[in-house]
């Protein structure tokens, strides 16, 4: 198992390296001098030179590149151009809110999506199946900020069950749960729609296999056949989709945080955009990509857990 993990980690290194390079290039090809962005057009040449020296943008490109790679390797993602605080500190201050939101929405997506998908597969082409397919198509057509606004209108403004601004007190678990619920439903329903679709497809495929017939023939209870034999073999595509969905989830969480006025990474990134805080954007991009690479790694490891044959390859 350890060897498998190490091999996968090594395989992720070139991707990480390429991601860092791409982020570096994207940020450098931007027209405009960051020093002038900070100081404004009226800056004296001396002041501009001082800021360039602080940011390191007076160095030749290759040296900036090496410094950037070196810093990233030691977990230093730089400081915000605007507030001058380390990016990692800014991120970790709001991270619990984003983790609450994404974790809660994942739970909602899985708890609704997997049973709904199995149910639809078991009633293939009947009313339940057709309804599940149409509803999931509707669910994944909802831009998350639209479903967020609709939920907010109904449950926070009309019925007043939930607060309009879901800025939770991190020390109060009940408050956290209450305030994360509505945004997590907005985010989780889209995810449930994806999971329903892929679970249905994967279950249809796995239930038509020979081992399912064998299990039934030898008298395994139907419930066990579906949930153990069927679902286990259907779980590789489901895990793949959940893993791939994390990229969409990250983007959607930005939108959800805006709609529900929650603190979190999304708020940080929008703030950085509005203030043209390029170093912050660069750091956030790197952090996001690290996150995706880590999720891919976890997905790979889960394949090995679900299906031991994967480990040998």
């Amino acid at each position: 198992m350890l060897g498998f993990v190490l091999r996968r980690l090594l395989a992720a290194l070139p991707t990480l390296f390429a991601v860092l390079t791409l982020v570096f290039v994207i940020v450098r090809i931007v027209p405009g001098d960051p020093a002038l962005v900070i100081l404004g057009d009226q800056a004296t040449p001396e002041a501009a030179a001082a800021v360039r020296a602080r940011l390191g943008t007076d160095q030749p490109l290759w040296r900036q590149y090496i410094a950037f790679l070196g810093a990233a390797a030691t977990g230093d993602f730089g400081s915000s151009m605007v507030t001058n605080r380390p990016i990692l500190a800014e991120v970790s201050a709001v991270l619990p809110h984003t983790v609450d939101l994404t974790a809660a929405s994942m739970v909602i997506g899985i708890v609704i999506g997997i049973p709904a998908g199995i149910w639809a597969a078991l009633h293939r082409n009947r009313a339940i199946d057709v309804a599940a397919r149409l509803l999931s198509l509707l669910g994944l057509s909802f831009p998350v900020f639209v479903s967020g606004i609709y939920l907010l209108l109904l449950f926070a403004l009309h019925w007043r069950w939930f607060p309009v601004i879901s800025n939770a007190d991190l020390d109060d678990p009940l408050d956290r749960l209450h305030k994360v619920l509505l945004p997590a439903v907005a985010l989780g329903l889209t995810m449930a729609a994806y999971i329903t679709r892929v679970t249905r497809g994967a279950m249809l495929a796995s239930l038509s296999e020979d081992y399912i017939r064998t299990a039934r023939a030898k008298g395994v209870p139907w419930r066990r056949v579906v949930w153990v034999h069927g679902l286990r073999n259907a779980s590789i595509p489901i895990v793949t989709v959940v893993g791939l969905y994390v990229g969409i989830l990250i983007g959607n969480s930005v939108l959800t945080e805006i709609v529900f006025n929650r603190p979190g990474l999304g708020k940080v990134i929008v703030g950085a955009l509005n203030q043209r805080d390029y170093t912050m954007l660069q750091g956030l991009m790197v952090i996001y990509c690290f996150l995706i690479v880590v999720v891919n790694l976890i997905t790979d490891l889960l394949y090995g857990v679900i299906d031991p044959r994967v480990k040998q390859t």
Partner: protein
Amino acid sequence: MSTAAEVELAPTRPSGLKRALARARGNPTTLAGAIITLLIVAGAVLAPWIAPFDPTEQNIIDRLQSPGGDYLLGTDQFGRDVFSRLLYGARISLVVSLGAIAAAMVTGGTIGMVSGYIGGRFDLITMQVMDVLLSFPSLILGLMVVALLGPELENLVIAIALTAIAPFARIARAPTLVLKERAFIEAGRAMGFSHLRILFAHILPNILSEVLVMGSLWMATAVRVEASLSFIGLGVKPPTATWGGMTRDGFENILDAPWLAVFPGLAILLLVLGLNMIGDGLRDATDPKLRNE
């Protein structure tokens, strides 16, 4: 001179897309999706003739009028007619997403096809680059690119196209890998056809339907990403009407005039749903595993 040999050796099946379209036509979901989408396209094309008001004309006296009355869907905080703005906003959604998907389809498709055809180390490196592109969360990548280049129509097209290139490269590469081993391609090579001719005259027609079906599915995503970027404030600049921008303005006035956010949101939902229904039906029709459902 070579036509006889080509006809003999080329796969004899009719175009995959034609069969898919025929099969999709019998699918009520696809039909409903096509009707929704066509209505919105018609509204966008005919906007100058059917919009009751100028979409950017402000009329402060009639601000925040509720739906009904003189204004079918009410007015916004500047007294602009919401219905007229929705019609014009559809143009931005459709133009940006069509442009982005066309660009991604051509670039990504070509990259995937050429990479698969050449194979070897070149293929390996190209696909590695595509994987890197895939490891950026797409909305964040789009957001970065628009923020850096500036919120112009062309930049939105570029940003959204960039997020979709890698999937198109993958979908074009996979069948190319299989096709290039087939007899009719080898025959073409033996007859001295140029690589370009083999790629574009013999491989392309055989992978086109898969790429086009994927394009129809990605159109829905492109509409959603464009709307999301406008909602964040990175869309085509005001006073041009965009659905995402209208939702955002409406959201800011949600206590006084909830319809301002509800209608543009509904418009986005309907277009994305219509496109998804079409794409879904087309995919079911082309996927041999799902064909007998």
